């Protein structure tokens, strides 16, 4: 996700769904003031993306494609395992169980490898206060996903756990980075009104490069 896409996606969400931001914007007495505040929010989002999101989102290379392929391959093996398990009906599971376990095992291995790739990317490129926080985040994400992973291994949820494990897989790391970036932007924006009087940076903008974020987004 590039900077422009990130800012466009989340400026709308913050201005319409975040109560703190909505309250802050409603304090504007005129439409011009409101537009100025929105401009400052956009600026905070751009800065937050540079500080917390850019390296993580823009360094996704071949590993990202590989982990996605492994997740989809794992999901396919999961479905095949479940289908194989029930293919002869409940009475035939003693015959189908070994083959189903093979498919489920392959799925488990593929998805676990995808998790490893994603967690390594997170450890290397996400911005936190330190490595300890990254390890804590990664451990939490993996622990949270353990139940889904275990449930997807069993053939008794008929696709529900398999789908949950697939779709929540990678998005958990992305969500962590996105939430941290948004929180930073929000704090930065809301704190501008507190403390001593300040001249906004927007007053120093060079009109020739006002829309410079387009080129920064790459």
């Amino acid at each position, binding site marked *: 996700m590039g900077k422009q896409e990130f800012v466009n996606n989340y400026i709308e969400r913050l201005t319409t769904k975040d109560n703190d931001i909505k309250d802050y914007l409603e304090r504007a007495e005129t439409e011009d003031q409101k537009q100025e505040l929105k401009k400052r929010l956009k600026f905070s989002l751009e*800065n937050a993306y*540079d*500080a917390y999101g*850019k*390296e993580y989102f823009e360094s996704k290379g071949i590993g990202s494609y590989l982990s996605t392929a492994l997740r989809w391959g794992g999901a396919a093996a999961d479905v095949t395992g479940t289908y194989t398990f029930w293919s002869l009906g409940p009475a035939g599971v003693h015959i189908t169980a070994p083959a189903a376990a093979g498919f489920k095992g392959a799925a488990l291995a593929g998805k676990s490898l995808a998790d490893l790739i994603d967690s390594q990317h997170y450890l290397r490129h996400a*911005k*936190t*206060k*330190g490595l300890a926080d990254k390890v804590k985040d990664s451990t939490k994400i993996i622990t949270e996903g353990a139940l889904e992973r275990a449930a997807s291994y069993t053939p008794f949820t008929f696709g529900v756990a398999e789908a949950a494990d697939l779709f929540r897989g990678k998005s958990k790391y992305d969500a962590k980075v996105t939430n941290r970036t948004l929180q930073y932007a929000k704090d930065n924006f809301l*704190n*501008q009104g507190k*403390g*001593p*009087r*300040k*001249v*906004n*940076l927007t007053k*120093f*903008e*060079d009109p020739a*490069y*006002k829309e*410079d974020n387009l*080129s*920064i987004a790459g």
Partner: protein
Amino acid sequence: MKIKDCVLIEAFKCNQEETIVDVAKKLRKITLRHIFVTNEQDEPQGIISIVDINNRVVAENKNPQELKAKDIMSQPIEIVNLEEDIETFYNKITETNHVMWPVTENNKMIGIITIHQLMKHIK
């Protein structure tokens, strides 16, 4: 009188891990000639001027895509706390040739104080 009684400029800063290309784009967008460099905890670590980019990157034929802000920033820098007395701070910085300093609260950078603002309040 304290620093918090002055009018500050909103913090113009970049993260120490940002590339020089991104730092240069920020300096291009905002007409200030200096940008402060902060760490993950938002604590000021250094300062980069447009001249630094010229002298330490362009003139040295270094790759601005690979260099990070922390690689070329000037440090250490004088930091002023919001609660600090203006005259005390002014006496500290009279020997330097800087024109702006980062203002912190609980060690986090919250703004910039300029020499013009300081001069206004010095008796």
